[in-house]
């Protein structure tokens, strides 16, 4: 069984960058797939990778990460301006971020219009956990 936890943007908007990363990573470390409304800032995405690397151990192997963004190229000039202004005021709520623990998610395959999540066999996962 795979658990997916949805996090609305309002749950992280008041947090510091590190606070956001901690919150999302803590959920992923419980072997849950995080579905975040919107996206982190670009700098926060690299910080997420950095913190993930610091936390890797026997039990936690890292994450699979994917951001789905409504293509900016499809927007008209006015729409783009409006969306940029809204992002500045309200944070980046557009799109969706998927963070899957590497123990559960084998691969996230993405092209601009679709996203595929390949999960690991849960029996194998349990066997591995027992070994440890």
């Amino acid at each position, binding site marked *: 069984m795979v658990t997916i936890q949805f996090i609305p943007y309002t749950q992280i908007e008041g947090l510091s960058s590190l606070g956001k990363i901690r919150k999302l990573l803590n959920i992923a470390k419980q072997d849950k797939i995080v579905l975040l409304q919107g996206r982190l800032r670009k*700098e926060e995405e690299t910080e997420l990778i950095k913190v993930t690397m610091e936390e*890797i151990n026997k039990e936690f192997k890292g994450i699979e990460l994917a*951001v789905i963004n409504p293509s900016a190229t499809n927007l008209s000039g006015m729409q783009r301006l409006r969306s940029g202004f809204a992002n500045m005021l309200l944070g980046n709520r557009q799109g969706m971020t998927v963070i899957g623990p590497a123990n559960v998610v084998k691969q996230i395959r993405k092209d601009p219009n679709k996203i595929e999540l390949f999960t690991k066999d849960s029996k194998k996962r349990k066997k591995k956990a027992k070994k440890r």
Partner: protein
Amino acid sequence: MGFFSKLFGSLFKGWFKKRGNLKLGLYGPPNAGKTTLANKICKDWLGEEMGAVSKIPHETREIKIKEQIAIKSKGKELLFNLVDTPGIATKIDYEDFIKAGLKEKAAKKRAKEATRGVIDAIKWLDDMDAVVVVLDATKDPYSQVNITIIGNLQARDIPVLVTANKIDLKKAKIKKVQAAFPQYEVVGLSAKYGTNLKSFYETLFKVVK
């Protein structure tokens, strides 16, 4: 404050560039061919190689720098320090290294060093004056690591040249890489066999200016 630090940053960057202390970073996911390209550049212009390469991912686990490389193209010269960085990944499992043929102890050591290497590579992003993003043209260019690296370079106003490496392989798709990053110069090449390196150097001049 942000404006002034940006202004001073660009002034200093320009000053260092003139003195040939430009730092050119090679970034990308593991096993894309960053060190193979670094070796090719060093062999072409210094006559010596930079580091070891391997089929097992995360062979480069420390930042490596080769100083004072002068490349020439169409009568112009570009002087820079080449920075080869460990591959950036979001997950590292020592069991993958065991599957690749390493003993358990060596695999665990490699995994530990590899995580440190990713952190260092990210920390060094701020220090780069220009970056060559090395992608494996046989793999999916839309991976989030690629998008995150390039997005960060864009946010930092660092000039970027994207290379679609391994074009000697049948599965290589340069057009897919170009479609993924239409706002950047994309050069298809084979670092292993030195294919299209001339075009790579010419484009590098264009990007770095």
